[in-house]
């Protein structure tokens, strides 16, 4: 089952479960909380982590996701073209860039796919690079599909407490 198909099935299941729980007497907020946590774990971007990196600035997080969605598609296209022309060094540089962007956003699957493409091209392992590109395309498709949910999640999620411990501000 493709990643995007899995996502659709899981979302339908979650909404169904949420409805049942609400009907069975759980408070709607509990149900929403349960489903929010579950949805978060399936998203292409680790939103709580991103919110922490943005120091809780939700507008910034939303802008970054929207920009990343465009950038990922552009880079995916460039990687595919360069790979078809066997320009492995160029592919490696593009994949390196996507890896960095994905890492900062907390887009872990896209980061892993980019890292595989980069490593495979540095070692001239063309079949591995082609396979990793196919995975990247699937995960990018998932990212595009999830955009509305991701944006909604930015508004409702809490920053990851593990990344939220900051040094004290000093007087300047």
């Amino acid at each position, binding site marked *: 089952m493709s990643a995007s198909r899995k996502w659709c099935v899981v979302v339908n299941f979650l909404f169904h479960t949420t409805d049942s729980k609400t009907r069975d007497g759980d408070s709607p907020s509990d149900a929403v909380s349960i489903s929010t946590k579950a949805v978060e774990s399936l998203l292409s971007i680790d939103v709580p*982590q991103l919110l*922490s*990196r*943005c*120091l809780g*600035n939700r507008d*910034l997080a939303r*802008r*970054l996701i929207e*920009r*990343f969605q465009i*950038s990922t598609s552009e880079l995916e296209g460039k990687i595919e073209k360069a790979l078809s022309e066997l320009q492995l060094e160029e592919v490696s*540089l593009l994949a*390196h*860039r996507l*890896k*960095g*962007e994905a*890492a*900062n*956003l*907390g887009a872990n699957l896209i980061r892993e796919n980019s890292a595989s493409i980069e490593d495979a091209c540095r070692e001239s392992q063309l079949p591995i690079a082609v396979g990793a590109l196919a995975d990247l395309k699937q995960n990018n498709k998932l990212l595009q599909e999830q955009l509305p949910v991701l944006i909604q999640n930015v508004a409702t999620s809490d920053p990851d407490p593990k*990344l939220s*411990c*900051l*040094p004290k*501000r*000093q007087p*300047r």
Partner: protein
Amino acid sequence: MKILIADDDPNTIDMLTNTLEAFGYDVTSACDGIEASSLLRTGDYRIFISDWQMPGKTGLELCKEIRDRGLDNYIYVILLTSFSSMEGVVQGLESGADDFLTKPFNPAELIVRIRAGERIISLESREMTIFSLAKLAESRDKETGDHLERIRTYVKILAEELSKQVEFHDIIDGEYVKLLYLTSPLHDIGKVAIADSVLLKPGRLTTEEFEVMKTHTTLGAQTLAEVATCYPSAGYLKMAIDIALTHHERYDGKGYPNRLIGDEIPLCGRITAVADVYDALTSVRVYKDAYSHETAVEIITRDSGTHFDPRIVRAFLGCQDRFLEIKNQLNCETSRTVMA
């Protein structure tokens, strides 16, 4: 503190800027190596965060460019990278980077690394500022030559020797020696306020003139104390004040300005007194020729317990050879007749 960020990924720039601005930094960004290079040339930035791979010039090339230019003001460079291999770290450090930040960056880590950079920059600025101030005071009295360079070296040698004595173990550590080396050149800072007619007078001073000259201790301490009030975090000024105020006190209580006795005189003042007198004795002055090292040692030994703390004189006798080496290295115009 102005920080320059260079990265071709606008998302990285926005995230870094958001964190740095939240902590009160003034941030400028460049989207490629060429723009970063031209902004660095303005001299406005002391901290530079650069992506490794960028169009125009890479982070490594920018690092090399900064170090090759040998700028007066040190620029602290942090390389931002997705590399985590040892090879990458070595390459970065060789090109002149000071630190690394790996993507994805953690805001807390970013801030503590920036603060480490600020500490290094402030140390450099602090030392330069203090020594320039001291040189300014010294510039009015040309005859003292490399007096400040010698004084700070003498006090360092003395403090290191003293730290070998058990009773000073807990007082004199590496930090104390560093501070003493840093602040001792300010001992005569108050002389900037003494009139030329007194400061530069050839021959002996009258009683009235000597009273005026003595005020350089209180004037220097007052000036430094005012600076310390404005910058309470500058703890090193406390030692500078003590030295300026007490380096003419005598162990027997007959010194000036406050006639302090024995251990009432701060240790840094007692150490500087020995170094200052040794340098005055072995240097030419408008009113006298230079004494030989042996004569200076004799006078300091004679004045142990009266002018000087006997424990410091003992330490001085233990390291007098090094004093002589420094005196000879940092020539103190002994070409004129050396008085026996």
